[in-house]
């Protein structure tokens, strides 16, 4: 069954990516010119700890084993979902990550929905309007969206809607009211690349032969735009799902910091900053997992949407 082989190959690829992510993080964290034991202690204590104390700590954290020994041991445990305990908080690293995941997922999904709506509106208006200045104005919005720092957008909306108007709480993640401003802030940079891609495709679509034919047959510009051009233009947007996902995660780090939300982005950022190895590794593996799952789904859906790929798969089947 070629279809089964296609699916199996995609799965194998996905597994390889996750393993690779784990291994590369491990290598990076352990080739750092720092001794992991040193960063466990208060800077003012650092010079005062005896070599014996440091050795004890090294043994306690299993850092006295050979590098490969540590790798094999940690990988073995990680496969069973045990990434060890955070050196900062003492909590189980994987539960910390899984615990913050819903907050970030909720933020990301809300932002993504807003972003898609925003992108569709911007692209459609820019493509539909016959007024040149309006089209140009809307066409520049995506560029503006990526170039304004998320940080600044966050502080600006806080200043207006939270501190001045008092409509939304400025900090925390308790309840829907606290979600609005962060989601809007995050949606802006995420919407930008989607809008740009959509707009390009709408533009080239509107100049395609089949549109001219449709228009000649008496279809309105809006009908063509929505029923024919948008459908074709939407397909490539699916392929940038991965990029969008990256944007969401990167944006979440900043948005969670500005709006004082606990979440995966901020957790990861802090873990990297404090060299909390267990949490960093867990977060990288989780990111890789989500990334490959998104791509896997896209890869598996693609043949269903694109007849050409379906044919290619079928022709390879034995007669």
């Amino acid at each position, binding site marked *: 069954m070629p279809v089964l082989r296609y699916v199996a190959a995609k799965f194998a690829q996905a597994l390889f990516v996750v393993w690779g992510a784990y291994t590369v993080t491990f290598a990076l964290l352990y080739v750092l*010119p*720092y*001794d992991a034991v*040193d*960063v466990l*202690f*208060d*800077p*003012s*204590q*650092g*010079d*005062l*700890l*005896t070599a014996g*104390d440091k050795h*004890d*700590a090294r*043994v*306690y*954290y299993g850092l006295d084993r050979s590098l490969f020994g540590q790798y094999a041991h940690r990988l073995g445990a990680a496969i069973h979902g045990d990434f060890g*305990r*955070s*050196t*900062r*908080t*003492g*909590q189980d690293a994987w539960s*910390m990550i899984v615990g913050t995941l819903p907050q970030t997922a909720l933020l990301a999904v809300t932002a993504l929905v807003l972003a898609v709506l925003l992108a569709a509106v911007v692209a459609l208006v820019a493509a539909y309007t016959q007024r040149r200045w309006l089209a140009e104005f809307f066409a520049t919005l995506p560029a503006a969206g990526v170039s304004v720092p998320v940080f*600044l957008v966050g*502080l*600006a909306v*806080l*200043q*207006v809607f*939270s*501190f*001045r108007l*008092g409509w939304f*709480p*400025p*900090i*925390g*993640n308790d309840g829907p009211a606290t979600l609005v401003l962060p989601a809007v802030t995050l949606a802006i940079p995420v919407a930008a690349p989607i809008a740009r891609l959509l707009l390009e495709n709408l533009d080239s679509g509107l100049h395609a032969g089949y549109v001219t034919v449709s228009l000649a047959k008496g279809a309105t510009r809006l009908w063509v735009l929505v029923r024919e051009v948008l459908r074709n233009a939407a397909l490539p947007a699916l392929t940038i799902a991965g990029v969008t996902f990256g944007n969401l995660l990167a944006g979440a780090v900043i948005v969670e*910091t*500005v*709006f*004082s*939300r*606990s979440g995966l982005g*901020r*957790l990861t950022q*802090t873990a990297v*900053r*404090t*060299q909390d190895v267990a949490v960093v590794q867990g977060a990288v593996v989780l990111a890789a997992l989500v990334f490959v799952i998104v791509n896997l789904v896209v890869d598996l859906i693609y043949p269903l949407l694109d007849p050409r790929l379906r044919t290619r798969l079928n022709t390879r089947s034995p007669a």
Partner: protein
Amino acid sequence: MHKRRSHHRFGALAAALLAAAVLAGCAAPARQVAATGDDTATPVAGGTLRFGVLDAPANLDPHSGSSYPESLITSNVTDKLIYQNPKTGALEPWLAKSWEYNDTLTQFTFHLRDDVTFSDGTKFTADSVKENFDLLGRGDKALGVVPVTAYWVGYRNTDVLDPLTVRVSFDRPSAGFPQALSLYFSGIVGHSTLLLPKEQRSLAQNVVGTGPFTLGEHVYQQKTVLKKRPGYHWAPASLKHNGEAYLDTVEIDVIPEAGVRTGALRAGTVDAILDVNNTDEAPLSAQGYRIVPQLIPGRDISLDLKTDRFPTDDAAVRQAVRLGWSRDALVKTVLTSSYKVSTSVVSQRVPGYVDFSADLREDQGRAEQLLEADGWHKGSDGIRVKDGRRLQLDLLGIDNLVNNKPAYQLIQQDLRKIGIDLQLNVLPIPDYTAASTQQGRWNIQVANQSRADIAVLEQMYSPQYGNIAKLTPGTPVADEAIAKLSALSRTLDPGLRAKAAEEAQRFLLDEQVLTVPVYNPAQVTAVSPKVHNVGYEAQSRNVFYDTWIDPR
């Protein structure tokens, strides 16, 4: 009406303030609003205080959590044997009713209160003290606990003489020990906590203390809730009241962004904030918020000069670093009135402090003379050269305090004028920690050390302990350092200790110029007018025991 207009102005200025925050200090000096009415008004029990902090508390183990918010929390949850009065610096009874020591300062005997219980209902006894001290002094390999070496050097053991008396022994004189017992590190925790391995001791639900608050809900990077401990009645006598704390709960909210912290205070989302930006002090106080600063006692932010590396091994270079920059400019452009420029290596709040401001003055002419006489001549780029080697100093600092970077940049500019190239490496705490272990890489290391006892100097500078100036053991200078600094540990006689303290400061600042102090850091809290008595303990950690809030 007026309020609305000022809000509007701030809305418009939001972006500009952001940029200005980096520049710091162009604002008018903060108006010190006196804590009016605080001492006379009658406290009201009840209510929740919401308190915004910058950094997320992670490790809640009182014996090892050392970041500011961590020690702030554990200071409110645990009690110590001895209380250090933040105003006078005097040591007062707390869980220990009284104590005495032998002449050689190697044995300390403590008589304990017999009415104290832990939050899990168990009784506080001499065994509790022994258990805590053994772990602090020796660590425990199996539990992954390292000793709190800095304060427990030479710890031998603790003997339980009777259920309410313990005797602690050292293998060398330890005059700083009683004060060390008042530090947040020395908080007494319960038996069940001490049995746990290192990681589990840091979890909120596992921390058992005898303090006026207990730990409630803790969401990492979001909030930590402190709850009033019913039946608490063993507060130090010099606090404003005895009995239970006034507040029902304290919610510590983590707000990483300075602008959001200030905004949340103005919007009433939180009642008080810590880590107030310099530029926010004046506007907040103008709007009626009280700015409550407290200088951090201990070693000031100080340029520690390493003697094991070129060119800070040269005494003339060290002299030039002391003389070559303007402390007046620092006061005018970087510090607010909450902070103080250094007048010695230790804060004026440390008993034994001596004013060395006459020696810590700018004299660029003298600095240049010293360098010229020593063979340092200016090269084509304005930087001095001797025997073909440039006068470049590598500085390692921490960016954990808002004034650090601007202060070092100012020093950098001034020193450049006399031909010294100061290279700044100002890093976040973990990077700083890691970088500080690179031996022979840095000429200058800068950090402060909060401890309101002159023994802090021995801890940091003695070649036997921290040896941060990297004196070569066995040399006359190193021997002199050991002699002068260990004198601080050999006496608790006020007169003798003051003399030893003066000699130690003179040795570090004048005779050898092993350090060039910069400024005395402070904790700055901004408080809504309805909140009263937000105070600090001696090491400048906020204590909420006397705090009360107007009924809503």
